[in-house]
Structure formats: structure tokens, C-alpha cells
């Protein structure tokens, strides 16, 4: 009973001391801010040219004409076929529906090219590790962890308290970044944000747990976390077949795939994203988060502060 009381009291006090004191302005922060601005500038550039549609983008895996070329050909066809009113009407109807499709195609184009690939495959892990690795990693490397260890607070409280203290920063920075990109993309982006902020938030929690574990328990955690983000999330996450199930991004994509399917938009054929229900995908992500949290508490409880001087 004393242990439980001390645990709760410890989490509360660690949270109170560290919640609003996340380290901003370190190297990783500027790297992730830089990538945000870089991607945002590309998104703004595409938006200014009004290109968030299938006029210029071809559906993935299809060679040949893009939609703009196709509708132009149909319109040209109606001219070639001559003054036959029936044929002309059919061609005009096809062209009009194609144009309508192009106007409405901003959401899937933005989602597939920005959210599905760039955001989930690279930006989100980077944004999450920016704060999560620094949570206890900065204390380890700055050798201030000693001060926490000298207090009558259970190690498990320190770990959980610090995790809860960085979690809002991870979520605000990541969802904020997503919102910023969505606003840059205009209406298509806003639709995507409204539909996908929940799976992105779940992915943030999972990434936060994984990267926080690395920061707390591994030496040179920033490098390991960057390597993980690139190898597992970017490369493995975009592999064909079931290998991509090893990445956290896969489960977020499953939810997003099904949410957009509900709207009648199929984001990616044959990606295996329909194999997991939304509930299963959420359970997988929260399960990974919990696993790393428990493992972190276990290993962090055994850390000794060597070579402090």
C-alpha cells in the first residue's frame, strides 16, 4: 500500500515539476522544424498551382496517361466523331464527370502523397522522437538524472511521470505539424486532418513510448532512434508484403485506409491495409506503447549512474 501511495505521489510530483519544462531548441528540434518547413513549402507550392488533384498525379501503379490527358482525349474524341448528337453527349458527360472527379480528387491525392507517405513514413517518427528521446535521454546525457535518483521517489514513478510530462509535447508538436501542412494544402488538407487526426494521435502515443524507452535505457539514443525511424518506419514501412506490419505506421495507415474507404475513396490497392480492423489496429498500437512502457520501467529501475564525474 505504501508502495502504491509512493508511486502515485511520485508520478504527480514528477509531472508537476517537469510538465511544462520540455527542452525546446536542441539540435533534433531544429532538424524536425526544418523538415516541417521544407515539406510545408512544397505543399504550399503545389497548392498555389492548384495541383491537389489527378490532373497531374497518376494513380499509383498505372502507367500512361494521367487524368488530365484522359479527359482531353475524350473531349478531342467528341470533336473527331463529328456532329452526332448522341455520341457528343456521351463524350461530354464522360468529360464532365472526369472534370468533377478532378475537382474532388484533392483529398485522396493529398492523403496518398503527403499523409500516407511523407508524414507517416518519415515526418511523424522524426517529430515524435524530437521530444520523446529527450525526455529522459537529456537527463542521462546531461547527468542531471542523479538529482531525480537521489529523491525518495520510486524509479517507476520517475519513468511514468516523465513520460506523461513529454506526451502532450509530442502530441501537440506532431498534430500541430500535421494541421500546419493541412492548412497549407487548403480544403483537401483540412478534410484529411479532420478524418485522420485520431490515428495520427494514436501513432504519436506509440512512437512516444518507443522513443522514450530508447532515450531512457539506451546509450546514444538519438542516433538509435533516428536509425529506427529511417530503417523500420521509412524503409520497412513501405515494403510490399507483410514486413511492413513491423512498423507502427502500418497500423495508423490501416485506420486511415478504412476511414477513407467509408467515404468511398480507396487510398491504396493491395497494401494489406484492409486486413486489420480499426479496433485491432488501435489495440496493436496501444499494445506496442504499453509493452515499451513496461519494458522501460523494468530496465530503468536497474540503471546505475556510472562515471558521473
Amino acid at each position, binding site marked *: 500500500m*505504501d508502495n502504491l501511495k*509512493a508511486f502515485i*505521489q*511520485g508520478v504527480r*510530483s*514528477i509531472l*508537476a*515539476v517537469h510538465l511544462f519544462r520540455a527542452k525546446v531548441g536542441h539540435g533534433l528540434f531544429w532538424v524536425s522544424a526544418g523538415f516541417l518547413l521544407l515539406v510545408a513549402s512544397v505543399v504550399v507550392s503545389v497548392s498555389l498551382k492548384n495541383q491537389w488533384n489527378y490532373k497531374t498525379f497518376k494513380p499509383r501503379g498505372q502507367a500512361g496517361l494521367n487524368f488530365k490527358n484522359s479527359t482531353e482525349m475524350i473531349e478531342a474524341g467528341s470533336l473527331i466523331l463529328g456532329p452526332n448528337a448522341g455520341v457528343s453527349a456521351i463524350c461530354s458527360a464522360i468529360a464532365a464527370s472526369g472534370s468533377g472527379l478532378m475537382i474532388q480528387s484533392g483529398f485522396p491525392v493529398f492523403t496518398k502523397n503527403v499523409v500516407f507517405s511523407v508524414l507517416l513514413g518519415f515526418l511523424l517518427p522524426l517529430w515524435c522522437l524530437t521530444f520523446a528521446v529527450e525526455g529522459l535521454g537529456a537527463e542521462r546525457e*546531461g*547527468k*542531471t538524472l*542523479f*538529482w*531525480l*535518483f*537521489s*529523491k*525518495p*521517489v*520510486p*524509479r517507476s514513478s520517475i519513468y511514468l511521470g516523465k513520460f506523461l510530462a513529454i506526451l502532450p509535447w509530442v502530441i501537440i508538436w506532431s498534430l500541430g505539424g500535421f494541421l500546419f501542412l493541412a492548412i497549407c494544402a487548403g480544403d483537401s488538407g483540412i478534410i484529411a486532418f479532420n478524418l485522420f487526426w485520431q490515428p495520427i494521435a494514436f501513432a504519436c502515443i506509440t512512437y512516444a513510448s518507443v522513443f522514450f524507452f530508447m532515450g531512457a535505457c539506451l546509450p546514444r539514443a538519438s542516433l538509435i532512434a533516428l536509425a529506427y525511424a529511417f530503417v523500420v518506419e521509412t524503409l520497412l514501412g513501405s515494403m510490399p508484403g507483410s514486413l511492413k506490419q513491423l512498423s507502427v505506421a502500418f497500423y495508423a495507415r490501416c485506420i486511415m485506409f478504412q476511414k477513407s474507404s467509408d467515404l468511398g475513396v480507396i487510398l491504396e490497392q493491395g497494401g494489406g491495409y484492409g486486413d486489420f480492423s480499426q479496433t485491432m489496429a488501435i489495440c496493436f498500437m496501444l499494445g506496442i506503447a504499453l509493452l515499451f512502457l513496461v519494458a522501460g520501467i523494468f530496465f530503468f529501475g536497474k540503471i*546505475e*549512474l*556510472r562515471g*558521473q*564525474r
Partner: protein
Amino acid sequence: MIGVLADTINSDIVPLWCKKVSKWHGNFLGLNDVSLELRPGITALLGSNGSGKSTLMNLIAGQLYPDAGFVRVYGIDPWTWQGKHLVGYSPDLDYFYSSWSIKDFLARMAYLAGIEGKRIPNLLKEVLSVVGLSLVQSTLLRRCSLGMRQRAKIAHAILMDPPLLILDEPFRGIDPVGRRDLVQLLLQLQSAGKTILVSSHELEEIEKLTNQVVMLRSGRIVSAGPVSRVRDRLLNKPVEIALEIESVEKIRMLAQTVLNHSDVLGVRFPEGKFHVLMVLTRKPEIVSSHLVVVSLENNISIRRLEVVDEAPAEVMESLFEG
């Protein structure tokens, strides 16, 4: 100040008990089969760098866990959170939350220690006054001098009013007035029944504090006893005087003359320094005067004359070699 667990401490239990404690740092044995029992009062922990002082202190403060044996503070394992209530530790490290002020640092540490929020302002006022930081309490830790940070560490150690204080090199970086105040503070804490373990290279300060000394060498306790024994051995230790003169030709003649003095144990010529003569003696004052007289008599002009001050670590090492 009221200790958090003060009521629960059984005065019959030994404040600090280390039994056959060993600690490895990789392939290096940092502490080897150390047994130690401390009663209330001040005990000094002496030893050269790498002798295992900080390792022992870190084990007592619950920052390290012994590979063999055990440590108990009032019967409680200091590695546990319960044990941390009983130990106030001022480490020999200089890493802080640099963007915090001294006051914020201590307030947050007090809060983490479980001290009620409404009690903290008064507690801080008291502790800051005791360590002499009241006037600079708003200074950011990154802007503090070494002495100020050292005082902040001592304030941190006494914040919870623990019955056992572990102070690793507490005099380092503190000015003479501060040292005098710190000695007074530690003596007051001793009078209040605290058990205090202090490591230091400053034998003069240690002698003012306590007569009880524990000596460590290569991770083992080599002796324990009164500090006066250490002091005597230190006074008897030979020192070298460096004499630098203008004329290279006369240096051999000077060496021969100096060797005839009964207090001179030997001379040597440092490699590559043809103007310098090193004289070994146990009585540097007498021999220095003699060197000046001999130089004047032989019309030799002196460039430099000084007693070579050995690093405290080397002095300590020499104490254990005998």
C-alpha cells in the same frame, strides 16, 4: 526542520552498515570487500583519486548497487525509495538543471522529496540562510560560481533533514570564509545527532571537523583511526625545492655545497633544464634559507626558488605507500 521519517528511525539500529561490499566498474574492481560501520558523528573518508571514495559514497547514497555484500542505512537498503529518505547526498559532480535558479532547484527538489508545498518557502528560507545563499537565490545555476554551486549541493543534502549525510568533496571551490562556515554547520549537525561521512583532500579542514578517519586505497579500507596520525605522516613527507639560477657553470658546485647540509636528503637535475636544481628535504623553510645564503656567498643570482607543491592526490597516495 523535521525529517520525513524521523519518527520511524530506530536509534538502536546502526546508522550505516556496509558488509563485505564489492563493486565492479566493467573489468575494474572499484570497491573490494569493504566493511564499514558508522555511528553518529563525523567521519572523514580519505584516499587518492580512484581509491574508491566516490564509489563507496554512491553505494551508500543508493546511486549504485553492490555486486557483492550489502549496504544498510538504519536497516534499510538505500537503493530503495524508502532508503532515500534517510540519506542526504552532496555528490562530487557539477551537473545541474542549468536554466533553473538556485531557489527553483531547491524548491523542486523539496517538492520531489514529498515536502508539502506550503512548507517549502519557509524551509528554503532556512536552508538558504544556513548555506549563505539567501542573497543570490535567484541566480541561474549556469551563472553560479563553483563555490555557489557547491553550497547549493550542500543545501540539497540537508534539505530533507536526513539522519545520514554523505558529502563528497564539500570544500572544493569554497572560499576560506565559506569553509569556516561549512565546518561550523557540520559541527552543528553533528551536535544534532547526525551521522556524517565527508570525503576531502583538505586535511586542514578535516582536522577541524573530526578525529575519525577512514582511508581507502585501491578499493580497500587500509586503515581507520585518528586524523592526527595522517597529519604527522604528511608533515614528515619529503618535498622538493626547485632552484633556478642564472649561471649553468655554477650549478654543480652549488649542488655539492647544498648536499653537505644535514636537512638535505638529495639533489637532482631535471632533464633538459640546465639552470634548475631540485633539492629534496623534509624541512623546506630551513633549506630554502640555506640555498639563498649559499647563492649570495657564491655570487649566484637566483631566478626562481619555490617549494614544489604536489597535487593533493599525490600526497594522499604517498601516505598509503609507507
